[in-house]
């Protein structure tokens, strides 16, 4: 194949332990996402979208099946190997931002760069924050800034190491329409600026999904439809 796949899932199954026994979250997922493209995961609540995103990001180990990310099989990697793998390659933006509360905005972003082993992490972090209009918030803690600003810091953190893969789990879920739109615009703009960066996002917003190259519709842990936008 000429088109390299950023993500290649084969017969991926995910089962998690619940209070009443194991719960099957994902069933026999076969999925390929081309490198440099954008993909939206849509579906009703509880369909397994976030779980699928976690598996692809290496944050959740599939129960069975094969998960190949950026041409590497991560199915059998240990926690430490996965952590090393994520450095500089994977950026994640969460619905609830998930910034480290005891670190400033600058430190939150710099931490990602530092782990990625990139030089001058603080200068780069400052540049990224400035690019997102947050130069004046560098020394503020998460509790000192608004939700929209927190999400932009999270975005800066995810994108600063120039990762090849960017995952966004309902990035606008906790934001108002204006902030949400701004975040989405920044997300698409910045990922497109970076060559061969693949964007995978989970969303309930159809309009947002339609901005992506590929839409994957999940129901009850299975892919019921995969369309190219």
């Amino acid at each position, binding site marked *: 194949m000429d088109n390299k796949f950023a993500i290649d899932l084969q017969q991926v199954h995910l089962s998690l332990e619940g209070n009443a026994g194991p719960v099957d979250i994902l069933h026999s997922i076969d999925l390929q996402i081309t490198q440099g493209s954008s993909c939206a995961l849509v579906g009703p609540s509880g369909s397994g979208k976030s779980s699928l995103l976690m598996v692809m990001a290496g*944050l959740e180990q599939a129960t069975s099946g094969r998960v190949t990310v950026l041409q590497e099989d991560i199915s059998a990697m240990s926690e430490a190997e996965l*952590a*090393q793998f*994520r450095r500089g390659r994977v950026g*994640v933006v969460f619905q609830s931002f*998930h910034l480290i509360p*005891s*670190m400033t905005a600058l430190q939150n972003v710099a931490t990602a760069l530092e782990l990625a082993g990139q030089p001058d992490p603080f200068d780069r972090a400052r540049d990224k924050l400035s690019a997102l209009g947050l130069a004046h918030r560098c020394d503020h803690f998460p509790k000192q800034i608004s939700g929209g600003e927190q999400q932009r810091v999270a975005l800066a953190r995810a994108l600063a190491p120039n990762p090849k893969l960017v995952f966004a789990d309902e990035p606008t879920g906790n934001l108002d329409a204006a902030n949400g739109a701004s975040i989405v615009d920044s997300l698409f703009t910045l990922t497109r600026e970076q060559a061969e960066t693949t964007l995978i996002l989970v969303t309930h917003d159809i309009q947002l999904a339609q901005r992506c190259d590929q839409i994957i519709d999940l129901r009850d842990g299975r892919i019921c439809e995969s369309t190219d936008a």
Partner: protein
Amino acid sequence: MIALKIAQRELIAAWRERLHGFRILMLCLIFGIASISAIGSLRGAIDAGLNSNGRVFLGGDAEIELTYRLANAQEVAWMTGQSLAQSQIIDFRSMAVAPATNKRLLTQIKAVDSVYPLVGAVTLSDDLSLPEAFAGRDGLPGAILAPALLRRLKITLGDQVQFGQKNFVVMATLLKEPDNFGNFALGPRSLVLTKDLEGSGLLAAGTLFSSKYRLLFEDGSQLGKAQQRFDKDWPGTGAKWKDARKASPGADRVIERMSRFLILIGLSGLVVGGIGVSAAVRAFVAKKTGHIAVLKTLGATPGQIFWIYTIQITVYTGLSVVLGLLLGALTPFAARPFLPGNLAEVALISIYPSALIEAAVYGCLAAAIFSIWPLAQTEHIRPANLFRGGATAQWPARRYLIVQGALLAAALFGAVQFSGSWSMTFWLLGGIALSLLILAFISGAFQFALRRIMRGSAFQRQLPLRAAFSALASGSERTGSVVMGIGLGLTVLAAVGQIDGNLRRSITQSLPDKAPSFFFLDIQSTQLPEFNQRLAENPAVRNVETAPMLRGLVTKINDRPAAEIGGDHWVLRGDRGISYADGLPEKTKITAGQWWGAGYSGSPQISFAAEEAEEIGIGIGDQLTLNVLGRDITATITSLREVDFSTAGMGFVILLNEAALRGAPHSHIATVYAEASAEIPILDELNQAFPNVTGIQIREAAALVTGVVSSIASAASIGALATLITGFLILIGAAAAGTAQRAYESAILKTLGATQREILTSFALRSAMIGALAAGVALGAGLLGGWAVSHFVFENQFEIIWINAALVILGGVGLTLITGMLFALGPLSKSAATELRHRD
């Protein structure tokens, strides 16, 4: 009462959750209350034992003690007329010699009559009775020796022992001597019949001995009246009265002071527990912010909210008090097998309500004082906090501060009342409060400094370090509570260790450099020239000082009772060594007044020790009445002298002119400075030449004193450990409370690519830093305390005891590190996805 109903509902819910969130609060209180009630109960047990067995410990209903002499005929007639039975005991120091090996040892001889003991029973080995033991064998009278004496002289039953110039046969081992409770002696006990000492050369005129006359009254309950008759009929005799109401005042005083001291240390544990209570209540209120905001939205008033949560805290406090008292009351029962021999015999283990009440009062006050501030914060929670997160901490309203102030004043008042000593309470609790303030300040300064340091780019390269610093600086690790909690316990441990170590060092290391090798007592005037000659001929002897020695009691100052002027000063308590001199003794420095001059024979004059004179409040021109051998001598203070007791050498507080004591029977004492290797031969030679002379080896006496000091230090250290354990509970509470935060932080760092090792390193660093901070401050405070006590109280050179310092640092760091790591493994093992999913 809506508040009561809502509080009840919340209590039931908390009970279903097995009091999650309140366990540390309760444990802190339980432990503090249990410590105080256990100490109080034990003290009550010992007091009850002493009071109910007063006759046995005294050996009679009453005792009249004379120093240096026996009762005269008139005094004997008085005692015979006033009591049903009497028994005479003569108590003095001497040397016990094993004739076969010539080994000699200091012993405290108790010479008794055939009536002894009037009350109680002495227990001997082999079930021998006293008459059987005293009967002796092979024409030699019998002696009874303490096990330690037999062991150190390396003799057994049936062997001979020599006292003075007379041999005895050892008939039995002394197993139990009830009338010796609480008496401190330099040598182990020997028991003989007084009449058997005839011909021994001991008890010559001028020998230092005390004679005790035990009395049995027809009505043992009228001791107060008996004492009144004694006070009326025995004025100016120098005799001392003791009765079964307070059989062992010396021991009583020591036990009283030790227990008060330990209770105050126990209070420090409760103060630390209070910090734990405050932290737990704060966390509780923070957790309930949303709940409180909803209640206010529904119309609950701030007062109702306050009472809802105060009622709950009161219930937990009540439960803790009950459990703490139960534990404390039962502790003496459990501890009985481990009590030292003497105390185990005395203590009447039972439930002592006053001790429990004291502990309960302290516990309730501590809980109230430390929980009122966070409870008052509920007033600042607004319904808007539902949308904008928790309320920021503010100062409580004035009325809460007033109540807290009143509670603090009540606690201080209670502490003074219960301890009976405002000065001890002030110094100890003041020290605790100061230590806490310093710890809190240092903790705050540390966090401030961290925030400044973190801005430096050079520092920021190390992720684990930065993550640790940022967590500490943000306050999410509850640095303040933890530092104060374990810091105070470590401070007390450090202070006790430094003081104890320096005191022992001065006794065992620097004292031998300046102290004499020996004190020799009971040297008769006729023996003195030969005594001095023998020592002068010995090249190993560096110096010899001699002085005449009598004992006397200061009965009046300026014609008023001495205690009225000088209070409870040690010089006025009991009889003192008194000497006389004609010319100014060598190396004596007069600091005020004038020496009487050689050959002076006018009215009696006194040269008094300057420091002690200042403490008592007397000076040049004041008149002292001394009772010496039953006679009153009134003399005027005409000079003050510098006397340095720290050298353990010759030093008399009171010196009279020679003429004042002319004709009074007395002996001489000598201090001998010799090379260590020559000490035993010198002792052997002098004791053989002068069997009546007692030699006290300072090295051995110092070891005995060191043992006593160590026991006190151990007791204080145990008290400090109790405080440290409470601090440890706070540490556990903080670590447990931080688990969720650490799990969250761990999940985020994992998404960014941090390995478990890097995250664990960060957790370890923050724990170690908190421990190092607490230990560092504690050590500083301990060194300062140690220096202050060494310099101002013992007037010694202070040196850092490095072992103690290292233990404090290692202890602080180790404790926090191990606890931190134990509570880090859980958060670290959680899957990042699971954790983040829960948060979304």
